[in-house]
């Protein structure tokens, strides 16, 4: 079994993040709070509740070196939480947004964080020592709709964003005084802050999760049309591949090595994509066990009832309890998976453990140790 631990924390989870030593998990139970649970002797206990936001907390990230938590919310605010004594102390970050904040991520060096918002802007926040506060610089141009996801390139300067206008864009976030200019000529640090390096028009529908490969050479993002897009050699002449798959769309992606990507979404079951020697990406398999009804078609018990009615014949297996409200599609998760977080050492090039959280309120830890066929792809 690839799923090594499952825990139901709440009726619904919006997003989650892990502490540096992986003993604590912070998540938003679909309200304005952040709950932190600690694992002690195989039992999860509630350790802290962070209450500062007025509306749903849409993004949480926990930095591994500085042990800081950043949270963003639909209330257009962001807080950076520092652990002092035995309490988490919040510092307000004035993002200068007039719409909800939707996603957040610490940069690899943890000196900046990026926030995507419904105001069609991306905020890059950094710490100003002299004034002892976090400053927000906005990238206002380019986006035509909400920014759904942000992902930092390993070089701490390039940022990829996806938006509901269907496009994925890469920007430079170089900030004088925070970032240092690379001595290599023609590298990304030549660009100024907010400059768009690349715009990818591969999707005709909303784009959601985006992630860079460990080396930063490849980018993957998902579109709502059940397609995942892989872009190699991100730069002046990129190579793009569209992989359309059979099942429901994805919401988030994670590179677990240069050649393997895990996608999670509405099928409630992580999907594995891998690139072969020639660099062609394709769908490998689902990670968890799939619930397949014995006589029905391949799309699971949730739909066979509906399709039976649609096609006017009751030739599909019908449950005895009438309308079956169970959403058992993937087995482990019972509802859409919205968030996938790596559980390896920060910056390592291969990850074999990661966690997912979803609208069913579960956090599931996956380990690929037992998946022999997949380990060969890594």
């Amino acid at each position, binding site marked *: 079994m690839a799923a090594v631990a499952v825990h139901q924390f709440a009726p619904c989870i919006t997003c989650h993040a892990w502490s540096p030593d992986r003993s604590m998990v912070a998540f938003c139970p679909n309200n304005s709070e952040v709950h932190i649970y600690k694992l002690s002797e195989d039992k999860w206990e509630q350790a802290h509740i962070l209450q500062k936001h007025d509306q749903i907390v849409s993004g949480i990230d926990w930095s591994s070196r500085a042990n800081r938590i950043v949270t963003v919310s639909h209330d257009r605010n962001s807080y950076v939480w520092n652990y002092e004594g035995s309490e988490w102390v919040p510092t307000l970050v004035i993002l200068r947004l007039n719409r909800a904040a939707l996603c957040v991520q610490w940069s690899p060096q943890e000196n900046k964080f990026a926030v995507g918002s419904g105001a069609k802007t991306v905020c890059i926040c950094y710490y100003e020592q002299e004034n002892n506060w976090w400053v927000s610089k906005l990238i206002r141009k380019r986006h035509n709709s909400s920014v759904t996801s942000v992902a930092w390139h390993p070089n701490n300067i390039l940022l990829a964003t996806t938006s509901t206008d269907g496009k994925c864009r890469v920007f430079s976030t170089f900030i004088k005084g925070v970032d240092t200019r690379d001595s290599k000529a023609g590298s990304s640090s030549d660009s100024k802050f907010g400059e768009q390096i*690349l715009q990818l*028009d591969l999707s*005709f*529908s909303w784009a959601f999760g985006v992630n860079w490969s460990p080396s930063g050479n490849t980018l993957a993002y998902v*579109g*709502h049309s059940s397609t995942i897009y892989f*872009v190699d050699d991100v730069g002046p002449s990129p190579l793009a591949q569209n992989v*359309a798959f059979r099942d429901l769309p994805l919401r988030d992606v994670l590179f677990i090595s240069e050649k393997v990507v895990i996608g999670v979404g509405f099928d409630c079951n992580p999907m594995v994509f891998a690139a072969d020697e020639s660099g062609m990406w394709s769908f490998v398999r689902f990670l968890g066990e799939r619930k397949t009804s014995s006589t029905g*078609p391949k799309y699971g018990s949730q739909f066979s009832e509906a*399709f039976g009615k649609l096609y006017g014949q009751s030739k599909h297996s019908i449950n005895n309890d009438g309308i079956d409200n169970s959403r058992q599609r993937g087995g482990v998760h019972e509802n859409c998976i919205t968030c996938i977080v790596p559980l390896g050492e920060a910056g390592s090039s291969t990850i074999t453990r990661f966690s997912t959280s979803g609208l069913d309120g579960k956090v599931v830890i996956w380990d690929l140790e037992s998946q022999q066929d997949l380990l060969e792809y890594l």
Partner: protein
Amino acid sequence: MMVVTDDFVEADNAEAIISRIEHKSRKTESLLKQSKLVEALKTALEGWPPNTRDERCKSANWIVVHRAIMAMKDLDALFSSLDPEYYNILMKYLYRGLSTGDRPTCDQCLRIHERLTERAGLGCILRSLADTTNTV
């Protein structure tokens, strides 16, 4: 595959497209007369996207596709020889057929929809619904 950075562009004017569709219609008719039903459907589905927002062109194209869909009888033969690249575009036309409300059209489209979904999965349906730029 190169990335496209331009916005949606009208490639040809409507007249040129309509004459192409008429040519396609004649070809489809002759294939139907020869009972080459799968070939006829492929021909009708080809040449898409037409790169146009002109409703007349879309309707003209729909008439040709509709003709081929209604003539279809053996669905097993259809799916064993139809290339997967046609699945997404066929699904879009099936939904256009279902939206007409005309009983024989809907019956036929539903029959094909069932088989196409089994074949291509729910992703195919998503692709036909989520793409609001290239509509039929």
